[in-house]
């Protein structure tokens, strides 16, 4: 296929060709960035919580007399453990994808000079560590003596389990076992390392801080009451949670169940990421509409060109060009225009990405999005022009001999 005559013909339709190229360029820029946004949204929803989500549910009670936390804990632990299907019940202050209840700034020295960041403290009573099902990397599971009474928020001096991510952040490259950190007067000593444990409500400091969690064993009491972790067989969990909520009317009639927080970890997770899924859906919709409009534009202009050139096509056919020649002429013409548009579009895509980066804390667009976007647009262009090109190929040679 000779490209020279096609280019010469395009030069006579400069305006229309530029318009299609411009449309492709805009589509390319939006397409690449929208795809990138979708992928980053979907990635965010794949956070590893580190706990057995399928087997766990949270139960949060409010409205009780805060001085009677000990009595409430005893009643709830005892009452829920008796329910059929419940594998374990324990007291905990917060669960992944639930409400924050233990956010604290920490320092790696006693004087409070070296700020270590804002972390989430999971304060759990006996049984909660095992129930969570967190995976250990180093150290051993908490012993009975590790669960100490709380005077203020957490025990004054506690042995704690940190995630690998947090350990790497606080003490890069060093063995975290035996290391210490402080939160004002409260002292913590690391005795174990967890593979994963996501903080309750995402990471405020960006995606990198999502696993800055610490597990602090503690004795339930007035300062640690009202939030319970239920563990059951995944198949039975919804029924167990339903039964547990119903049982509260007799176990703790003086309390109100916080329905929004009293759910399986699975549904808490689904709620937590609902907004991201909706946004990803919207972006997919925008991309589909964009490609549709672009394709329709190409179809419209290509049809116009075919109609305008009926005589020329007829003459070419009369001079011996096959249907295939005509078809490939229009396909090649479209390919050239789209290629030009993609070249421009790649620049636009990067410009748009830079703009998004300044406004939405997005990372740089990875380079491999560009060839993928280009392939999609080439395919789209070829498909869109196929109909008009086939109609062009069907023009009979006899047209050349007609005057109009």
């Amino acid at each position, binding site marked *: 296929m000779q490209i020279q005559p096609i280019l010469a013909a395009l030069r006579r339709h400069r305006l229309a060709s530029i*318009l299609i190229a411009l449309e492709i360029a805009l589509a390319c820029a939006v397409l690449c960035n929208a795809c990138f946004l979708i992928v980053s949204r979907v990635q965010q929803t794949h956070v590893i919580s580190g706990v057995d989500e399928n087997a766990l549910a949270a139960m949060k009670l409010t409205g009780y007399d805060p001085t009677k936390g000990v009595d409430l804990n005893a009643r709830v632990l005892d009452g829920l453990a008796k329910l059929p299907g419940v594998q374990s019940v324990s007291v905990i202050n917060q669960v992944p994808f639930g409400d924050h209840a233990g956010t604290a700034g920490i320092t790696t020295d006693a004087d*409070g000079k070296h700020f270590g960041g804002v972390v989430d403290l999971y304060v759990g009573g006996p049984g909660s560590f095992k129930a969570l099902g967190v995976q250990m990397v180093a150290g051993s599971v908490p012993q009975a003596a590790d669960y100490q009474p709380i005077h203020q928020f957490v025990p004054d001096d506690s042995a704690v389990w940190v995630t690998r991510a947090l350990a790497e952040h606080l003490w890069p490259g060093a063995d975290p076992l035996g290391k210490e950190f402080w939160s004002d007067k409260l002292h913590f000593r690391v005795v174990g390392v967890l593979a994963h444990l996501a903080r309750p409500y995402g990471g405020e400091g960006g995606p990198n801080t999502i696993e800055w969690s610490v597990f602090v064993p503690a004795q339930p009491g007035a300062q640690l009451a009202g939030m319970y972790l239920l563990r059951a067989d995944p198949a039975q969990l919804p029924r167990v949670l339903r039964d547990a909520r119903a049982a509260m009317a007799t176990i703790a009639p003086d309390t109100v169940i916080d329905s929004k927080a009293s759910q399986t970890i699975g549904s808490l997770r689904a709620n937590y990421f609902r907004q991201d899924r909706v946004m990803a859906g919207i972006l997919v919709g*925008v991309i589909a509409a964009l490609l549709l409009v672009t394709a329709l534009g190409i179809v419209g202009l290509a049809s116009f060109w075919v109609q305008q050139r009926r005589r020329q096509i007829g003459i070419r056919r009369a001079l011996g060009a096959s249907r295939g020649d005509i078809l490939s002429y229009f396909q090649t013409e479209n390919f050239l225009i789209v290629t030009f548009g993609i070249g421009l579009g790649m620049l636009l895509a990067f410009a748009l990405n830079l703009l998004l980066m300044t406004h939405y804390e997005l990372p740089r667009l990875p380079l491999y999005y560009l060839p993928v976007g280009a392939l999609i647009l080439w395919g789209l262009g070829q498909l869109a022009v196929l109909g008009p090109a086939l109609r062009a190929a069907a023009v009979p040679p006899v047209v050349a001999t007609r005057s109009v």
Partner: protein
Amino acid sequence: MFTYYLDLALRSLRRNKALTALMVLAIALGIGASMTTLTVLHVLSGDPLPGKSAQLYYPQVDPQDIKGMLPNKEPPDQVTLIDGLNLLHAGRADHQALMSGGSVPVQPEQSSLDPFYVEARYTTADFFAMFDAPFLYGHNWTDAEGEAKAREVVIAKSLNDKLFAGANSVGRTLRMAGTSFRVVGVLDSWQPNPHFYDLNTGSYAYGEQVFLPLQTMLELRLDRNGSTDCWGNGGGGVGSILPSDSCVWLQFWTQLDSPAKAAAYKEFLVHYSQDQKALGRFQRAPNVRLRSVMQWLDYQMVVPDDVRLQNGLAFGFLLVCLVNTVGLMLAKFMRRAAELGVRRALGASRRALFAQLLIESGVVGLVGGIGGLLLAMFGLWLVRQRPSDYAVLAHLDLSMLFTTFVLAVCATLLAGLLPAWRACQIAPALQLKSN
């Protein structure tokens, strides 16, 4: 002339239905998408109290200790109890109120209703006058009653409907958190959006059901909601325990009727900070802000990022649709080169042809606008099905309806400029000859 061109435009559009439909579809899709997101943005960045918000100011002072001080750092978003009370009692503004949010259990007298929690606002008496909260029955408690820790409550219309079947409940008793309160007022439907005076409890479609005197709450130690920020050795206070004086957890709002008064009040805040520093309470140099409602909402970045992003995307999409329309219109106008050539040869000026073609684009824009309006209504319905707190607010208002058509027609006229100009350049002789 206009009607004649309109007739010509309609004929021409009818002649080539597929191409016309494509143009209308492109415009409708672009307008529909951008109007949907623009309406959401318009609703979310709206003025919560039109006509009043310009006089409302949110003072901020910086009571934090010297640790962690950075130059140009913003003071805390809320005030401590002691600063709030000091500023309140100073009474330098035309109206002022100190407030915080929480929730209280309501124990209805009717045995048919189980106890339930309602959102509460603990505030001082000026709140209602300052925010123009409309009363259906009764009135708010007075300053003196508030200071006396009166067991009085103002309830929202929805709670009045639920508990008292919408009757005038002034003087009736309402049991909350184990205490009997006397209903002194019932508010008519009132829900500023965004919930500007306390953004911690949710920015949109959020409204309190009961309003209690702040001093009463302090005495009864009712549960608080919202954010508490502490520094130094400050304890956050859990449940009914009050935060210490090194914690900010209250909002203080003022009404200042003129810019001069606002400037004077800012001056007062600086003096207040200096006095407190002299007393040893404040450690930092005076660091004060006095933002109006809209400035405050802007500073707090109330409009979700996602909404802005969607709006940007939609306008990007509209741009693609317009470029598309330019191309299609070019094809359409150029196809009629012969007809235009004849008109030119018969004496029509370029200007006349140009006007005729633009009217044709305007018609496309108008029809596309109608399609876009239907699509935007559908889009807003979709938005309302979404789980965000602002979803219920997504409705098209009159100004947005008007904007839709203006945007559609203007955008299409703009798109028609280039093709119309191009079509007018046709040499009439050439067109006549070739046929």
